[in-house]
């Protein structure tokens, strides 16, 4: 049974002058999939993700996100995706509820929906009673979970996570991935970039970008088998060692 494709990319390219940041990448992501987008710094991951989020116009090639074209329908794309940045995208000097209300409101949720979602979120994250707590008082692991929950507060089709687990301990990361699984089970597609190769093993499929191209695209199990590797770490080193570009 063919599952619905929420992201499609065909020969997607981005050039900045002479420099080709993203070089004719091809891939698809299915609905509800957890798709890992791996690559070293400077490989072109961030640029590719920007194009998919409607922040950057491609130089050539085709791509659709949630069924909308990345050239002409960026407004619709933005309405249907969520985003969590590396720095967790929460306002430290605002309270938890204020953050929720802000982001939910930005995505056009009605006041009643916002209230519903707020109490639901607080319960899910075991943060009842902490409505008025400033985000800066939360430990890092909690901020991370909150940021993710807020990123999907409007139940988007896809959520883009840009290095979401930086600086967090392994236990907290496990819990975080629990949230991701739950979201995936609800039908939200997860597009995640990460440096942590053990996390790559949590994904349904991963792609590895090297020097602007996708050099591998398969499930972690298949990749490990194909490269005779015991872990995704090894697979990655195997592929990335060929890289010419380093650094962002």
């Amino acid at each position, binding site marked *: 049974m063919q599952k619905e494709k929420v992201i499609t990319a065909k020969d997607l390219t981005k050039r900045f002058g002479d420099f080709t940041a993203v070089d004719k990448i091809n891939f698809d992501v299915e609905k509800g999939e957890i798709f890992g987008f791996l690559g070293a710094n400077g490989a072109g991951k961030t640029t590719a993700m920007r194009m998919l989020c409607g922040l950057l116009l491609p130089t050539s090639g085709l791509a659709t996100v949630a069924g909308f074209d990345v050239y002409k329908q960026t407004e619709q794309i933005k309405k249907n995706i969520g*985003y969590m940045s590396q720095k*967790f995208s929460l306002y430290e000097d605002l309270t938890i509820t204020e953050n929720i209300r802000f982001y939910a409101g930005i995505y*056009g949720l009605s006041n009643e929906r916002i209230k519903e979602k707020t109490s639901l979120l607080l319960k899910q994250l075991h943060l009842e009673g902490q409505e008025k707590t400033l985000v800066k008082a939360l430990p890092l692991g909690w901020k991370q979970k909150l940021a993710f929950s807020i990123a999907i507060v409007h139940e988007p089709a896809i959520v883009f996570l840009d290095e979401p687990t930086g600086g967090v301990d392994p236990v907290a990361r496990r819990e975080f991935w629990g949230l991701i699984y739950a979201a995936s089970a609800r039908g939200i597609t997860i597009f995640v970039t990460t440096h942590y190769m053990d996390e790559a093993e949590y994904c349904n499929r991963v792609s590895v970008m090297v020097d602007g191209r996708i050099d591998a695209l398969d499930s972690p199990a298949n990749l490990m088998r194909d490269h005779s590797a015991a872990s995704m770490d090894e697979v990655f080193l195997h592929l990335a060692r060929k890289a010419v570009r380093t650094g962002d």
Partner: protein
Amino acid sequence: MKQFLIFVKKEWLHIWRDRRTLFILIWMPIVQIILYGFALTNEVKNSNIAIFDQSKDEATTTISDEIAASRYFNLVKNVYSYNDISATFRQGKIRMAIVFPRNFRYDLLHSNHAQIQLIADASDPNTANTLTNYASSIINDYQQSLNNNEELPYTIKTQVRMLYNPELKGAYSFVPGVMALVLMLVCAMMTSIAIVKEKEMGTMEVILVSPLKPFRIIIAKTVPYLLVSLLNIISILLLSVYVLDVPIVGSLFLLMAESTLFTITSLSIGILISNSAKTQQTAMFTSLMSLFLPTLLFSGFLFPIENMPVALQIISNIVPSKWYYIIIKNIMIKGLGFESVWRETMILVAMTSALLGISIYKFKIRLA
């Protein structure tokens, strides 16, 4: 629209939660007005002087009494030799010394000529000038009173009338200057910092991904500072009128309208700066260097522009606060109407449109 308001509300929360900055934003103009109004003044009062009276006759005593009684002078010492005078000056005890020669009255009445020597400490040339002028005018008054009994062939009386500010209060020129300074600072600097802060924190990316249009984001960031500025203007005006006795002679409505225009000009500059600044420190530094200092130096409220070399005068035309200062003075102090400020207003409008246009263009480029 609802999204826009939510964003504005968030911006308000940011400002409100940062109590220290808010405190400075609201109190700074008030403190500045009070400082300029009371503590810092160009007027020279109670200057210490000494008198070296070698005649001690009716004339010299009368003149000495008049001078000592004046609020500009404070007679601290009677000296008895030129050496004494030098020593007292060197000790920094006096700013001016008055020397009456011997036989002053006799010379005055019999040969119709008498001299008085005024020696002033010109290491502060402006004060020296002012003091000698004050003293000379007191001496002239005495001469006048003598001459009233005699006929002089030709007399020219100069009648001086100080328009708009008869008491020559320094506050009249400072208040508009402080308004320009405060608005520039609050609007431009704080706005640029607020926008760049978002970039630094990483939340700007998230907002750009959201359905909120970038232009609305920028405007939403400036709205709270617009309101804070209006609050500042009102507090400055209230202080001026009720505490400094600087009246608002012209139309209050026009004053507020022009101030709002200038606020928008400053906000546009803030937005422009935020486009290129990557860190809050850069934003702050750029604002200070390109706005605060030029406003201080080139708006005309501390140093008259007409006295500057032509090159600098031309530069001063680019500084928006110069035009605002002229407008405010015309309305507030001279009580003039729109007919006399329309040219300056047009210049501000042109500047604002250009700035906004460039900012929007640059912002769109960044996303393309």
